């Protein structure tokens, strides 16, 4: 069974709300190295493209998408750093 993403405790949260595509993805790329390997990065984004972009990026680069939580006007996206 999957974990409930709303219960995830990230090592770091980066707030990319208000930046347009692909700003939140660049923030994720920049910030992932600031959490330890196996640590969790949370990205806050108000750009709807990010919900597709971050999973595609995680898959390509080799990190693990843990889940997303839709809030009012933005989404919280959780990625586990794998390397």
């Amino acid at each position, binding site marked *: 069974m999957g974990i409930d993403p709303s219960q995830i405790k990230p090592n770091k949260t980066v707030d990319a709300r208000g*930046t*347009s*595509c692909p700003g939140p993805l660049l923030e994720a*790329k920049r910030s992932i190295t600031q959490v330890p390997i196996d640590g969790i990065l949370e990205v806050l984004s108000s750009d709807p493209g990010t919900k597709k972009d971050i999973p595609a990026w995680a898959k390509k680069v080799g990190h693990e998408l843990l889940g997303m939580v839709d809030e009012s006007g933005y989404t919280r996206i959780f990625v586990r750093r794998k390397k």
Partner: protein
Amino acid sequence: MYYLREMPDKLTITVISGSVDRLTGMAVLVSGAVAMDVDVEIFLQLWGIYAFRKDKIRENTHLSEFEELGEEVMKRMVEKNVKPWHEVLKEAKELGNVKIYACSTAMDIWGVKLEDLEMVDDVIGAAEWIEKAKESNISIFV
């Protein structure tokens, strides 16, 4: 996935346009590629070179389409926090592997040197560009 030979993912972009709308689209694709660890090489021709001139890059407001909507679209871009194309490109260049080349013939036409252009790494000819484009998985024309 299996590849016949190992090569990095690479996007090549031939830029003949100097219009802000097209350059904005180009810059967004470049930063998307950088985020995906895709190398990018850009070849500037005629108006592309003009748009990268240090004395023009910030004052250029030319659009390629729907000129009558220019003011509105610029206003919306500011409202939506879309950065100017050259800032997006600069950020992408700092974050990833992005090389920008200028066409030697077009440099001649404008009478500019490498140091007159912003962010441009080198001057090359069309044949060398084709060699670079041959090695890329994605190649687009702006």
